[in-house]
């Protein structure tokens, strides 16, 4: 596109970016404040609120649960999502069009409705353990990311490469692992990261699927804010932001960040 922008437009964009970045900077500052209440700019600097996170049992437990759920849900979603994405691309003519819609349904259906329905039908209806129900819920909401991102990689994969390997005597299953998978590696990494971060940050599905003893970090943050208004929440938020930064660094290393803009 030609490079002439009205100065007012540029000024507007600068303001929008200040609006986008400002609140996150404020959270960062608030986490360092040496006060018992949340404030910005920080009054005095301390890291004690980060230590405090791990002194509170509920945070320790929910961080573990969130990480466990995120890993398991992502692994499960990849395990079933990769073959599905492969099938959608490889056997497009024999599969109906609605199948690919089915796999994005978890984004289409309001998450809060999904969470409530899982509570009704699975956790209560089938007396399933709450951890298992939570895992199912998270697997469902990250599945669309896995299927779509890997599908996008497979769409640019030339399947005659796979056929070449088979014609040279490589078993189809072996071919998938030695030829197809290495060539969509970046898609798998991207899917993993998107799925993981989606699961870690989820509120709406987890909301109904937490109970005494089992909760996730975002739900715990919500509960904590209702009772206390101390900087520990800001420091937990900073931890989550650092996770985001780490994720973006991994993406930058492996795929280049413009990947995320697609």
């Amino acid at each position, binding site marked *: 596109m030609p490079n002439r922008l009205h100065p007012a437009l540029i000024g507007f964009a600068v303001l929008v970016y200040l609006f986008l970045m400002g609140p996150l900077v404020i959270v960062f500052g608030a986490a360092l404040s040496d006060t018992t209440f949340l404030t910005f700019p920080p009054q005095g600097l301390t890291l004690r609120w980060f230590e405090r996170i791990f002194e509170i049992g509920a945070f320790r437990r929910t961080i573990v649960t969130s990480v466990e759920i995120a890993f398991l849900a992502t692994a499960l979603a990849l395990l079933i999502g990769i073959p599905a994405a492969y099938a959608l691309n490889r056997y497009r*003519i*024999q599969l109906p069009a609605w199948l690919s819609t089915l796999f994005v349904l978890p984004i289409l259906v309001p998450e809060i409705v999904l969470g409530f329905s899982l509570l009704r039908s699975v956790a209560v209806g089938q007396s399933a353990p709450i951890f298992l129900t939570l895992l199912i819920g998270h697997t469902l909401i990250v599945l669309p990311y896995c299927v779509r991102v890997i599908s996008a990689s497979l769409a640019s994969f*030339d399947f*005659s*490469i796979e*056929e*070449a*390997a*088979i*014609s*040279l*005597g*490589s*078993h*189809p299953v072996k*071919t998938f692992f030695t*030829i197809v998978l*290495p*060539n969509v590696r970046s898609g798998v990494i991207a899917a993993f990261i998107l799925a993981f971060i989606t699961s870690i940050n989820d509120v709406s599905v987890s909301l109904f699927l937490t109970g005494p003893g089992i909760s996730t970090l975002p739900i715990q943050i919500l509960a904590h804010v209702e009772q206390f208004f101390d900087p520990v929440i800001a420091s937990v938020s900073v931890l989550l932001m650092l996770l985001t930064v780490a994720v973006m660094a991994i993406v930058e290393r492996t795929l280049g960040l413009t990947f995320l803009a697609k």
Partner: protein
Amino acid sequence: MTHPLAVEHLTAHYGTTKVLDDLSLSVGAGELVSLLGASGCGKTTTLRLIAGFLEPTAGTITLGGEDLTRLPAYKRHIGLVFQNYALFPHLSVLDNVAFGLKQRGIATAERNKRARAMLERVGLDQLADRLPGALSGGQKQRVALARALVIEPPLLMFDEPLSNLDAKLRVDMRVEIRQLQRANNTTAVYVTHDQEEAFSISDRVAIMHQGRIMQLDTPEVLYQRPANAFVARFVGFENLIPMKVTARDGDDVTAQAPGGVALALPKARFGDIPDDFVLAARADGLAVTADPDAKGLPATLGLRTYLGRAYQYQCETEAGPLIANGPLSSPLEPGSTARLVPVPDQCCVLKPE
């Protein structure tokens, strides 16, 4: 290692659409047969059925007497060269070529030795350690060829292997492919939509249309004596003129064209001529002359184009619009009347359809 290929009564469907209709084809040991036709004619489907990537609804495929029809693709040991090369992007050139040998459990040292030898044959031993992304189109196709040949397949198949290359390279590569195929005496099936390519490279060519073989013959026969109107048009007989025999006299047959003009056709060139037939002529097969007494179809000349070796005229005749060539020495003006005289060498006789 060389085996004849026999395809018998092959029928295939995509969903409910029939894409191949009772197709039979035999390729002799060491022979190269091309499947030639427009896209959607079934040529690639045939190749993919033979390779085992598609399953036929009916029919059998045998190679050297062994029935391949139900054998999975990876057990068929057919060398395949793809249109877009299909090199493994994450493997070096050497590993690409050695891949098939590795599947056969050949030890690393031995397979690298053989792969290098094959790369040397296609002139790429210098590039053995590169990744395919760093190669030019022609080099990629050579790697693909080496990769297919190194496993010494009983059958080698090509799927439009040259269509991504530029014109000059295409001609060089097809000579190279033919030499390698000859030298190894490998049975080969070659799919292309390029008539010149098919004719130049093949022992025999199958011209395909709507899932059927319209004619399977040597390039010479196809070019000079097409068996039907479809093949005639395909190989450049632009004019199809319905005719009726009016007299038979020893070596000559007299036949009447639409509009009543009678033409004499020598039996020596055309063989047996049925009472009703179609005279097929290339533009070169109808000579344009201003001589009103010449024995030819009366025509009104339309647009004239310059071909370098001749002038070509769009003509209006009793038999409909025809295309004919006239000598450079005597250009005729559009709108003038002329005669179109059949040149026996550039014409052939077809049964009416």
